């Protein structure tokens, strides 16, 4: 284990003080002179066509400054989400916005606007649309398949018999739209000792980020300023510029702090551009206030699954084959793709010898879907855990041993292409977790205590956890300070800060001498990745590494040209560059920086590499001449899948009379390579644990099938976990074995941290109920009571979004 100065050590991220003093600014906290408030009118119905809008009364009101409708904005090809629409496709779809001197006036103006909407047929459950004769969510069709070969609408219908057999849990025979496969599936099942088939439903639910996505925008001398709620920083720029129909160089994005995203704010979303368009129209700064109700509508939701899986197991427990079929609930905008990812997750976590995936992406008129923490991977983790338990039972094997046998390791190959992994130690994670949790000991404890039963669960989570090809940018100024410019967004993971430590590590700088620049494109930031998909840790330790190595090379060259000898004769420590043969002969970093300014050229950023992104180029140009500049594109070698893995062990105590359970203990183990920031990792593992607990039993969409109206919009109705829903103490740890494809061995973890939790929960509930598999999340108390008392459930098999 390498001995690092910064990597692997806790530190105080610079933004935390603002968070505890109230000084941290989120988009809605900003005020500018002359600002007006905009409020949206959103669709009251699930699907319709706006026939007329009469704003005359509103426009005559004192204090009303302007109205914005879809006609003021560029047209968007269906089914992509427009900024405003005349063809609402879900309850909450924004139709127009009103700007006024106060919010009160805007609300009153809204009440005075007459909007006539003709209703259209709508869909709340994909199976209702797949059924022949059933409604379609869009006039263009009920399926929208996105692929590199060509995306488009289709109409796919199944017969009543096919729907019924799907509801009965049989292999679907209805038409599907996408497929991939590897290995010999038939042989895989022929070789199996135990074959299990399991239907499953995972109901989608809202992201419910704490911060509604209010945005503020104004124009100054042709530049559009946007204060937004963004997960990513520089990655937002091209998309936001496109939405505003301006060039990136004419856009400034300020997003220093974002109150949660969880996948709903990865790239610029249409609403973020609304104030910019509105501001341009009425020539006033506009703050679009998004309410909690609207955040439910616009703030994205997890893709729903209605699926079927068939797994083959050899006598020793090895997974020989997997066959997966998923009907995806893609919402109205066809934003999803979770189903194929779910297949990918199975191929990684359980490493079947052969596998097939088939999918049908169905549109519904429910809230738009999008990536949500482990999109696809975490739904399937929940569905698969009790299936693995059942296989173990039928084979007479231990549940932990079956998982260890199949666990992702250095020889694992994943996805359709059967790519190798950079490294994987899920078996070691399971061993560590079992030990911390005392898996052996807990199994010996009595199971029943009156009406209460104990359940023990094991869960595994996975998401790919890295990418490459982005830029790093750092700078040393004549005062000796190291400035780390990071285009990483700040959604609460502290990864913008922890990955910046990589530069300080390479240059052996004291952390007190480092300053991180982030949160606004005016801070001259490099082109960085999105903050999603657990990519940041791997990707940006690399970008900061290459930028620092570039600076290091330059510093040594400057030292050599100033003090004699060759660059190789020099080393660094204590913020000095000195002769290895005579450490007394050296220059301070500050002196090097001053010399860099004198020398110019690449040393001070006047020239720069040809392969860096245009955003990085502009940042370097702005910083040129201010010090020693280190800038580079991450061209380090990278091949194969970079995995983020995690496992969890949980004990619950379930009351058979009430269907409620208490979570007694939870242990989560991260397998994410070298641990960069221990406290930050613990936060992700514990926060992910809470998300998994919510998905397992609390959270889901409920839509009224008669009128297409959402039945739960607020926090409590949506079932967001509170302090009392989660255990008092959650434990976490990490395997902490370096990955060979990262300079520090680090990979990401944000999503597997949740997948292992929801999987452990469904496993534990099944264990408490003697192996019963509901094949459904969330598993609510009424479902448990109905099962225990032998009554029918209140929903149709495979029904979703309602009951």
């Amino acid at each position, binding site marked *: 284990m390498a001995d690092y100065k910064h990597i692997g050590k806790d530190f105080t991220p610079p933004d935390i003080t603002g968070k505890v003093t109230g000084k941290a600014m989120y988009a809605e906290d900003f005020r500018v002179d002359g600002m007006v408030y905009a409020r949206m009118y959103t669709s009251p119905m699930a699907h319709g066509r706006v026939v007329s809008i009469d704003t005359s009364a509103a426009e005559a009101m004192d204090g009303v400054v302007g109205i914005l409708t879809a006609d003021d904005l560029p047209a968007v090809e269906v089914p992509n989400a427009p900024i405003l629409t005349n063809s609402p496709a879900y309850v909450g779809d924004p139709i127009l916005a009103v700007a006024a001197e106060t919010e009160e006036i805007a609300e009153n103006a809204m009440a005075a606007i007459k909007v006539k909407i003709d209703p259209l047929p709508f869909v709340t459950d994909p199976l209702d649309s797949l059924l022949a004769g059933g409604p379609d969510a869009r006039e263009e069709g009920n399926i929208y398949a996105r692929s590199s070969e060509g995306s488009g609408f289709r109409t796919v219908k199944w017969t009543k018999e096919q729907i019924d057999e799907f509801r009965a849990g049989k292999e679907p025979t209805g038409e599907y739209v996408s497929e991939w496969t590897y290995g010999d599936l038939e042989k895989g099942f022929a070789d199996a000792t135990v074959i299990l088939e399991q239907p499953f439903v995972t109901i989608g639910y809202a992201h419910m980020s704490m911060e509604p996505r209010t945005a503020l925008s104004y124009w100054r001398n042709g530049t559009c300023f946007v204060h937004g709620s963004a997960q990513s920083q520089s990655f937002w720029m091209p998309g936001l510029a496109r939405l505003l129909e301006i060039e990136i160089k004419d856009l400034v994005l300020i997003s220093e702090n974002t109150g949660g995203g969880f996948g709903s704010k990865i790239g610029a979303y249409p609403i973020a551009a609304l104030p910019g368009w509105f501001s341009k129209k009425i020539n006033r700064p506009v703050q679009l206030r998004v309410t909690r109700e609207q955040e439910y509508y616009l703030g994205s939701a997890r893709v729903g699954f209605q699926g079927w899986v068939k797994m083959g197991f050899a006598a020793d427990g090895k997974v020989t084959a997997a066959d997966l079929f998923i009907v995806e609930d893609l919402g109205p905008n066809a934003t999803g793709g979770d189903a194929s990812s779910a297949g990918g997750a199975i191929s990684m976590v359980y490493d079947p010898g052969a596998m097939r995936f088939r999918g049908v992406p169905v549109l519904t008129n429910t809230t738009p879907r999008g990536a949500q923490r482990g999109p696809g991977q975490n739904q399937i983790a929940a569905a698969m855990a009790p299936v693995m338990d059942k296989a173990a039972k039928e084979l007479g094997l231990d549940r932990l041993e079956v998982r260890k046998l199949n666990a992702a390791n250095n020889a694992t190959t994943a996805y359709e292409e059967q790519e190798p992994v950079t490294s994987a130690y899920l078996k070691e994670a399971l061993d560590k977790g079992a030990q911390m949790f005392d898996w052996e000991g807990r199994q010996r404890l009595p199971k029943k205590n009156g009406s209460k039963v104990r359940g023990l669960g094991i869960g595994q989570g996975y998401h790919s956890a890295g990418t490459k090809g982005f830029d790093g940018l750092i700078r040393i100024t004549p005062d000796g300070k190291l400035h780390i410019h990071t285009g990483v967004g700040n959604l609460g993971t*502290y990864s913008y800060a922890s990955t910046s430590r990589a530069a300080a590590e390479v240059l052996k700088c004291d952390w007190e001498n480092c300053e991180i620049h982030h949160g606004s494109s005016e801070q001259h930031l490099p082109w960085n990745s999105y903050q999603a998909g657990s990519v940041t840790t791997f990707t940006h330790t690399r970008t900061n590494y290459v930028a620092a190595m570039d600076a290091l090379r330059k510093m040594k060259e400057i030292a050599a040209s100033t003090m004699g000898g060759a660059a190789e004769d020099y080393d660094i420590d204590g913020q000095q560059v000195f002769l290895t043969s005579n450490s007394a002969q050296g220059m301070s970093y500050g002196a090097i920086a001053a010399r860099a300014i004198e020398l110019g050229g690449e040393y001070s950023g006047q020239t720069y590499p040809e392969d860096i992104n245009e955003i990085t180029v502009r940042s370097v140009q702005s910083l040129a001449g201010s010090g020693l500049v280190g800038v580079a594109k991450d061209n380090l070698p990278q091949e194969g899948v970079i995995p983020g893995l995690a496992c969890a062990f949980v004990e619950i105590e379930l009351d058979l009379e009430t269907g409620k359970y208490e979570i007694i203990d939870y242990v989560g183990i991260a397998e994410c390579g070298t641990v960069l920031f221990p406290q930050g990792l613990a936060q992700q593992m514990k926060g992910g644990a809470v998300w998994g607990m919510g998905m397992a039993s609390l959270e889901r969409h409920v839509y009224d099938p008669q009128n297409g109206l959402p039945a739960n919009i*607020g926090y409590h109705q949506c079932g967001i976990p509170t302090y009392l829903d989660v255990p008092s103490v959650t434990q976490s740890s990490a395997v902490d074995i370096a990955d060979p494809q990262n300079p520090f061995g680090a990979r990401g973890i944000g999503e597997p941290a949740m997948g292992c939790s929801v999987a452990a929960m469904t496993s534990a509930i099944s264990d408490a109920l003697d192996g019963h598999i509901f094949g459904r999340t969330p598993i609510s108390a009424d479902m448990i009571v109905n099962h225990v008392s032998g009554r029918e459930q209140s929903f149709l098999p495979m029904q979703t979004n309602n009951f």
Partner: protein
Amino acid sequence: MNPQLSRRRFIKAVIASSVAAASSSGYHSALAQDRARGAVERLISLNINGQTRRVDVAPQETLAHTLRYKLGLTGTKLGCNRGECGACTVIIDGITNYSCSTLTHSVRTRQVRTVEGLQAADGTLHPLQQAFIDELSPQCGFCTPGQLMSAAALLEENPRPTRDEVRHAMAGNICRCGAYDHYLNGIMRASGQV
């Protein structure tokens, strides 16, 4: 939940002052134009973090709105504006309240404390603020001011609570990031029990 401010008392107070309550979906006033100007005195004095602030306040205005938009105290956050999430928690006469569901006019004679008032005048952080830093309690930070105010009120009433007592006292503050464990660690640390 604050025992003094039951839902019944709140509704009675609202009806008694003949004012439309803030609607669940946002700042809302159907009756604004119907009221004669000057019917209620609008320029009032408030006691915020020990300071007297004079501010123009509409009768139906919520405390969260006044703090954030008129007094420049944006530390108090609006997560839902409908009394569900606790992000807007402030302390009024020693008791936690959801400022989004508190009419500003109702606190004219009371002492209101917000997150901005937790620090000492010389900038020294409150033990809870320091403990939250040491334990890396916040993630995105949006719920943090509310968590701090609930925790501060708790420790003022019960300086050495058990972890379970803390859990129950904090149950009115939702954290979507799921940082509950770290918040509990922070509060236990601030109470000197770690």
